[in-house]
């Protein structure tokens, strides 16, 4: 049973939330990441494009959720990340965790979204109203890391 997945189209959360149900679970915590219309102090984001290296992304996502099971006393956990073009307000990522008690559910949910953002090979391109566009975390690096060797 897979715990991490990508979806290229909008999807209904209800069936995914239902997978977290369990008689021992007294808590359900979730995180939803939504597409916002500004980033890094700059307004005018029109839409985002997410691109993923799916084969490695699924492996890394599954590893993160396995780590969450090892670290926290949780019952079930799932994460879904969207790919493709997303409009403002759309759901970009969902994490759902069930547990006997809320502390573990909150902590595991936080752990999973933080690790997914840092480790899963997903890239986000912002498209602005003025016609500009850029890959988040890459363009600034390209501008500021010109004297840094890449293989570090």
């Amino acid at each position, binding site marked *: 049973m897979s715990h991490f997945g990508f979806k290229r189209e909008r999807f209904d959360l209800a069936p995914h939330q239902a997978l977290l149900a369990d008689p021992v679970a007294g808590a359900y915590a979730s995180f939803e990441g939504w597409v916002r219309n500004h980033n890094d102090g700059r307004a005018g984001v029109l839409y985002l494009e997410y691109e993923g290296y799916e084969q490695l992304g699924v492996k890394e996502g599954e590893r993160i959720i396995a780590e969450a099971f090892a670290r926290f006393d949780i019952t079930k956990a799932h994460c879904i990340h969207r790919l493709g073009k997303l409009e403002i307000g759309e759901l970009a990522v969902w994490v759902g965790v069930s547990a006997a008690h809320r502390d573990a559910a909150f902590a595991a949910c936080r752990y999973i979204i933080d690790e997914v953002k840092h480790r899963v*090979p997903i890239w986000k391109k912002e498209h602005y109203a003025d016609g500009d566009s850029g*890959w988040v*975390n890459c363009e600034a690096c390209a501008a500021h890391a010109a004297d840094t060797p890449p293989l570090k």
Partner: protein
Amino acid sequence: MVQIRVEYFAILREHVGSAHEALSTSAATVGDLYEELDRRYAFPALGRLKVAVNDEFCDWSTPLQDGDMVVFIPPVAGG
């Protein structure tokens, strides 16, 4: 010489103008391969670049083998 495949994503895909290519190379490691391709494409400087071979993260010193599929991984931005 080994025959390998390189796949490009995001900023590197756009920079190279292609999502993948098949290559014959004398590069001994994935780091050597990066330097060879950087001479050809003049990749943008990307700070914390990572690399994967055959769908697993690996070190830059990983030896290249015939049939390997290599992906250079620019800084990620999920969520």
